[in-house]
């Protein structure tokens, strides 16, 4: 199989890189780190825009990034996951705090997939008109979308949404709590996974206005994680039963790809920062990068990154083509990308020496985003177990 990016894919990536270089600076990230979490309420209009987060989303929307995977009939570009992975790598390079991965890479394909199902939403009776409306809004970047309620465990998806009252009878009209919803305070809508009847799963589309949202303290503050309290109902339900299981399976694979893509960009950025510092910083009359103890560290980090790249691109291709090995490929990509980014963070910190530990040095802005993403959608150990499970099940091809 020939695998190289097309000229157009490289141009899209280049365009995002150029835009984000000026629209998402370390100063913006710093402003978001320093902004205290605020209770989510009210429209963003007229509010101050610390770290230019709203302005940046508007630029990304203008570019067409949120709708990259959406069908053209719904205002999107009709491109695929291979196109998206390069764009998200660039998002990682600047530690983009907005939920582009969640909106463009998870919610858009989930909604578009529901509309394509024969007898759309028949399993749950989701209103195709409502799904299409939200798909259009998210694809145009008018609505910011996020995802919650599911994480990745060794044995498969792990549900994190739980009823507030553990003894309550599921499924409907029982208030639930979903922890660690990213972009909690800036999302307009969330795709939330919840427990269904008889131990099954359900997927709901929940408007932010209908949820009580509480910020969660996080090392990666700009990512704005929070807890959503909400009430599942037939109106919010998108899918249940078999359709929900398929949707959640797809979310888990796509979540791994979205995180892996961004981790590649983060690793690249941190290695570049460390390499630049190693050239600039002199000790014993020479740049520290000339010492083997330093240059080998950087070379090892680079090698780890370059091995993670093709695995991530293959996962993108497998998901785009719906290949049977996509779950194994996504898991492998996430395992390798997490390891590569974690190593890049550690090496960059060591190469920077004491200055790397300071608030004033930009490195921490990228390390913290790396740690958060590396642990999300299944960390390296979990994803390795998934690779094994998929291989034993004969689905790794």
């Amino acid at each position, binding site marked *: 199989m020939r695998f190289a990016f097309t000229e*157009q894919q490289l*141009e899209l990536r280049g*365009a995002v890189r150029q*835009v984000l270089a000026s629209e998402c600076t370390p100063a913006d990230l710093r402003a978001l780190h320093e902004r205290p979490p605020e209770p989510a309420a009210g429209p963003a209009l007229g509010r101050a825009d610390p770290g230019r987060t709203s302005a940046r989303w508007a*630029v990304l929307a*203008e*570019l067409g*990034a949120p709708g990259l995977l959406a069908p053209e009939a719904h205002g999107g570009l009709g*491109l695929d996951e291979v196109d998206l992975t390069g764009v998200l790598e660039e998002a990682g390079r600047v530690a983009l705090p907005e939920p582009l991965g969640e909106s463009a890479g998870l919610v858009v394909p989930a909604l578009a997939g529901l509309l394509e199902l024969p007898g759309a939403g028949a399993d749950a009776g989701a209103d195709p008109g409502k799904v299409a409306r939200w798909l259009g809004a998210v694809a145009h970047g008018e609505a910011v979308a996020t995802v919650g309620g599911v994480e990745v465990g060794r044995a498969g998806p792990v549900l994190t949404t739980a009823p507030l009252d553990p003894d309550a009878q599921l499924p409907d009209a029982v208030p639930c709590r979903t922890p660690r919803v990213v972009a909690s305070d800036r999302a307009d809508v969330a795709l939330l996974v919840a427990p269904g009847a008889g131990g099954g799963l359900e997927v709901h589309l929940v408007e932010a206005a209908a949820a009580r949202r509480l910020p969660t303290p996080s090392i990666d503050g700009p990512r704005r994680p929070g807890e959503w309290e909400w009430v599942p109902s037939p109106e919010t339900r998108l899918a249940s039963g078999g359709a929900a299981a398929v949707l959640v399976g797809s979310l888990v694979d796509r979540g791994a790809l979205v995180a892996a893509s961004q981790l590649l960009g983060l690793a690249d950025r941190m290695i570049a920062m460390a390499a630049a510092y190693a050239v600039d910083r002199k000790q014993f009359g020479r740049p520290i990068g000339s010492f083997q103890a330093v240059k080998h560290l950087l070379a090892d980090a680079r090698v780890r990154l370059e091995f993670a790249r093709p695995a991530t691109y293959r996962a993108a291709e497998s998901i785009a083509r719906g290949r049977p090995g996509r779950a194994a490929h996504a898991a492998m990509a996430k395992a390798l990308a997490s390891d590569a980014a974690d190593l890049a963070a550690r090496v960059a910190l060591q190469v920077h020496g004491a200055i790397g530990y300071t608030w004033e040095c930009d490195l921490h802005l990228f390390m913290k985003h790396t740690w958060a993403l590396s642990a999300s959608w299944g960390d390296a150990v979990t994803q390795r177990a998934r690779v094994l499970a998929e291989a034993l099940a004969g689905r790794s091809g």
Partner: protein
Amino acid sequence: MAMNVVVCVKQIPDPAAPSSLDPGTKTLNRSGKLILDDSDSYGVEMALQLAGNVEGSEVTLVSMAPGGEVSGLRTALAMGAARAILVSDDSLAGSDALSTAKVLAAAIRRAEPDLVIAATESTDGYTGTLPVQVAELLGLPSVTFAKSVATDGRNLKVERQTEAGYDEVECPLPAVVTVTAGVVEPRYPSFKGIMAAKSKPVETLTVSDLGLDASQVGWAGARQEITDVSEAEARSAGEVVVDEGDGAERIVAFLEQVKVV
């Protein structure tokens, strides 16, 4: 009235990459990939805004570059220009500003413009003479240093930047206008624009296609020659004043000496 707005764009070596002079010809090395001159992105944006105001209007790019280079043009096409004319010919190497103006004027004439927009100067050459030369060759009025441009399709209203503020200038179309950097916010090319740029027409012309003689352009036609290149003199260190309670007085004395106060 629908307008055809022509924008002169230069494709230059990436200013972020280290540049070099060819030791033989003492001219800028342009063998690598060329990109859209940043200062031209303001002209493109201005043209797109003017064309966007009048239905049916289009923006045409005109450029001269070696090796059939189109990557800078693609960027401007992705921003929204409709088509491009590229003049690329080995005999153009070594062209001075006037020869370049002759070539561009001939190319612009083919596009039958209602308005020609250029940057005040390029980021790699800085001669700043080309736009007015083009205007003269085309026999069109020239308005330089525009900070805002408005048109009804027949006449042009320009606020022309001056040291003291700005002049209001009006002239009939067609005309040549140069816009200063920073007067508009150039748009980012969108994904849709990038995808569409692939299928937009780029007409590539040679010197003879334009009816010019190779002896009029390039090294053969240049009236300027770079005879020598030398390092700029290093800045002197300046004077360090240690404040011994009389710092303010000494600053005032210095400013008086250079006639600032």
